[in-house]
């Protein structure tokens, strides 16, 4: 009897103790209401549940807040947006700025004219004071997430009137405005009237957030698994009003870690947008739900992000300092096998150092086809080859058509957009000639280096997913070709392995672009030799030149980019072409494909989503802040 009494007491204590902290009510929280399904858009947030759910002050380093909870998509705003796709009326948006960036002649001053009639969600007007406050506050302490970046670039900020901001820069910088331009996120503007009232703004949780976006926070899960946003009644007083009233009255962002659950929830009608699935899950979804689709209406479904998965060589390692060796390894790879192994054929291949997405296919890929086809690779033995195969995309489409039938495009342009143009031919004889010219020899099936050691190394890769498959398959192909390569998973590849140079080769990425703009500054500036850390040192290589490659010709291109007007599209494309041709010659990285994200949406409740084939106005990968433009185009489905 006493045993049961004891057990009952323990259980009661556990229950009471465990529920007490759950039951603290916030008297300031808005009333909970039912959310009519035809007024609610439900989105899967790829983040894990927020570690610090009630913290919305995303200007402080760390913080533990969720970002893709709707916070930066719906509530935050800044001066410009650059869409990774076509945009509603071009990819470049003037958001809080009324016009494009205006620099002085030597790029030491940027003048911004702000959009008038924009109000914070608490009814206070947005003015130049908010921009100045944001910059001054961030610069006051490096703990603010933009503090160091602003301090390095900005000398001072002036506000000659309520709607004009003048940034005085410390040195010429034609791309300073990119700090306030959203690719995925950007330097969000702080509400001066809210933060200046706080005793310690750095310790302020900013709950509920006061924003410039068209939505306000309705409620959130105390454990960070969901956030519900409600359309502002005065949505016309936001920058997004230019594109119309956002359709959904409520938008819910839900964390759903298990991929199977995402699929089930969408099939059951409880999810309208999925951030990402595995290839197999996407194929299952397409089979089971007529109203669900990806970026492409059929195979390969996925949206190609402006990120370029690649093989990265640590060029400070003596093994990879000879470009003939790097080229030889590239020619040992069968691109079709790589595509099938990593993406089940749904990869969008790229032979050049550029993601095949957004405007890049028109700006770079199409114009470069002739050059690539005619490109001659010197094998070092007096002969040359033309290594480029422009038919790879077509061949992959033909290979998957028996399984996916009419879902696979037949139109050449559609095939190029879906599967890529071409890639390098697998040519083991040419690879052998290159290695032999570099002093390598072959013993049986094993290549030996000039010093007599076996040509063997480790390639670091992701722990799971398509990148893991990619790394594993390329290791296997090289091993079959006589180079003994071991794939090794690296859980902290971007945090430690790549920055510390603790790798010989890796499958990751060091190229990310705007997507909707041909300018390469987003990643390219960090590749300048001034940022390459000495070989063997314990210094961290800053993002993104993980390959630690430097070349005077590359420095020259970067220095010219720095002083070229961001809006001079033609000049930037010409510089981009120079860069791409240099990368083909030297092959410090082996470009492979765009990072295809199997995002999906369902049209049972909402219509008006972007489509790759007819209306690619926004990125459906919904953790990007620019996905917010989708909401202005959504309307309830007819049924």
């Amino acid at each position: 009897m006493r045993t049961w009494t004891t057990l009952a007491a323990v259980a009661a204590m556990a229950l009471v103790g465990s529920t007490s902290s759950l039951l603290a009510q916030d008297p300031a929280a808005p009333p909970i209401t039912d959310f009519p399904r035809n007024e609610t858009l439900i989105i899967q947030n790829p983040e894990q549940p927020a570690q610090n759910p009630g913290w919305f002050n995303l200007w402080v380093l760390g913080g533990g807040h969720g970002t893709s909870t709707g916070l930066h998509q719906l509530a935050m705003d800044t001066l410009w947006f650059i869409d990774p796709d076509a945009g509603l009326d071009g990819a470049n948006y003037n958001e809080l700025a009324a016009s494009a960036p205006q620099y002085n002649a030597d790029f030491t001053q940027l003048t911004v004219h702000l959009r008038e009639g924009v109000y914070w969600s608490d009814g206070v007007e947005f003015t130049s004071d908010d921009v100045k406050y944001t910059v001054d506050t961030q610069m006051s302490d490096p703990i603010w997430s933009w503090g160091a970046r602003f301090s390095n670039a900005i000398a001072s900020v002036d506000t000659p009137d309520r709607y004009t901001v003048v940034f005085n820069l410390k040195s010429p910088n034609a791309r300073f405005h990119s700090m306030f331009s959203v690719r995925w996120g950007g330097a969000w503007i702080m509400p001066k009237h809210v933060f200046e009232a706080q005793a310690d703004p750095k310790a302020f949780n900013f709950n509920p957030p006061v924003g410039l976006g068209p939505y306000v926070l309705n409620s959130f899960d105390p454990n960070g698994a969901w956030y519900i946003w409600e359309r502002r009644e005065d949505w016309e007083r936001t920058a997004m009003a230019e594109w119309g009233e956002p359709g959904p009255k409520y938008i819910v962002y839900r964390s759903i870690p298990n991929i199977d659950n995402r699929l089930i929830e969408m099939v059951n009608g409880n999810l309208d947008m999925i951030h990402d699935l595995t290839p197999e899950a996407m194929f299952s979804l397409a089979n089971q739900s007529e109203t669900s689709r990806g970026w492409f209406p059929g195979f390969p479904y996925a949206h190609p992000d402006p990120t370029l998965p690649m093989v990265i060589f640590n060029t400070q390692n003596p093994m990879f300092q000879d470009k003939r060796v790097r080229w030889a390894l590239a020619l040992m790879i069968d691109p079709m096998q790589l595509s099938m192994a990593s993406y089940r054929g749904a990869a969008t291949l790229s032979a050049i150092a550029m993601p095949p997405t957004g405007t890049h296919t028109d700006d770079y890929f199409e114009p470069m086809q002739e050059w690539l086809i005619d490109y001659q690779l010197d094998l070092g033995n007096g002969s040359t080859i033309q290594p480029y195969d422009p038919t790879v995309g077509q061949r992959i489409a033909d290979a998957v058509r028996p399984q996916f039938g009419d879902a696979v495009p037949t139109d050449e342009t559609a095939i190029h957009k879906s599967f890529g143009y071409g890639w390098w031919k697998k040519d083991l004889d040419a690879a052998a000639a290159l290695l032999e010219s570099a002093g390598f020899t072959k013993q049986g099936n094993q290549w030996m280096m000039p010093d007599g050691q076996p040509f063997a190394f480790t390639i670091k890769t992701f722990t799971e997913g398509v990148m893991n498959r990619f790394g594993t398959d390329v290791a296997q192909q090289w091993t079959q070709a006589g180079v003994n390569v071991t794939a090794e998973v690296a859980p902290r590849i971007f945090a430690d392995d790549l920055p510390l140079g603790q790798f010989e080769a890796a499958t990751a990425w060091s190229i990310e672009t705007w997507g909707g703009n041909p300018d390469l500054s987003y990643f390219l500036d960090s590749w300048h030799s001034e940022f390459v850390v000495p070989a063997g040192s314990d210094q961290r290589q800053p993002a993104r030149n993980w390959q630690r490659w430097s070349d005077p010709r590359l420095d020259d291109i970067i220095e010219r980019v720095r002083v070229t007007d961001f809006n001079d599209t033609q000049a930037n494309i010409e510089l981009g072409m120079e860069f791409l041709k240099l990368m083909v010659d030297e092959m410090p990285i082996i470009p492979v494909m765009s990072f295809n994200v199997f995002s999906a949406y369902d049209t049972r409740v909402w219509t008006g989503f972007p489509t790759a084939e007819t209306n690619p106005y926004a990125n459906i990968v919904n953790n990007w802040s620019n996905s917010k433009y989708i909401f202005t185009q959504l309307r309830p489905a007819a049924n």
Partner: protein
Amino acid sequence: MKEYLLFALQRFALLAAVVFFGVSGAFFISHLSPINPVESILGEISSRATISPVAVEEMRRSLNEMFGLNMPLWQQFLNFWGRLLVGDLGPSLLAFPTPAMYIVMLALPWTVGLLSVSIIITWIVGNIVGGLAGFFQNSRLLKLFGVLAIGIQPIPYYIVAFLLVVIFGFLWPVLPISGGFAMNVRPGWSIEFVLSILHYSILPAASLVIVGVGTWFLGMRALVSNIVTEDYVTYAELAGVRRGRLVGSYVIRNALVPQLTALSMALGGIFSGTIITEQVFAYPGLGSLLVRAVNGGDTTLVLAVSSIAIVAVAVAIFIVDLLHPFLDPRVRVG
């Protein structure tokens, strides 16, 4: 009584020593990790923006200073115990400046609630059925239960959890498969909220019970199978003791003592959470929190969870030690 008080004091001293060495060990082990929380934060920021290397270096310096990571380890250890003795575990490094204990307390109730209830249900069902199976060894129904228990036990937990998701979330969608409670219910002392929690915990709890009941069943069945052969049981049966009283008071009660100890150990172990359950069902809890803290190098949060777990297990054992003399008259405290 004097002997019992002495016994209790000795056990308390042992408890204090276990907590001290356990928590100190957790401190040093967590600080030996090569994972640097500063680099975790910088890696996250760098992956989403383009930042000049000079700016990154400044941010690195500021974060190291803010987190106190540039102090010698022994000084960090002393600071840690100084704060711990006043109940302050310090701010979470990856959710700075929010206190680590605050973040733990957000997740703890869900873990304690789900796991304690699941374990108790599993324990009760497993031991009752196992006890009956051990006594009524010819019962076909109980034999069938035994076959099922043995058959299910080796199935990996994830498979069982996933099957439940598919059956009750997809094929026959009658139960929620994600979350802790409905989005249109406000947390608070209300029947609506409690019912919502219960509703959403059905599948996670069922998955834990299905996988866990076999172990208790098999253990109890083995214990009872031994006890029924004891002389005193045979004597009681021959003496005409009522069957129900024989099973409950003479057999199962004696077999429960080791099972009770095992229960206290199991309850003490719930503070590490169950990561797979939380991932499959998107259920809030300590498991995911702990994994993220370890992977991100958030030593403060790791220590917060570890300290709670160490104290909970030590206290659970302490309570069982104190209760043992009352539960089993054969135990002497001198």
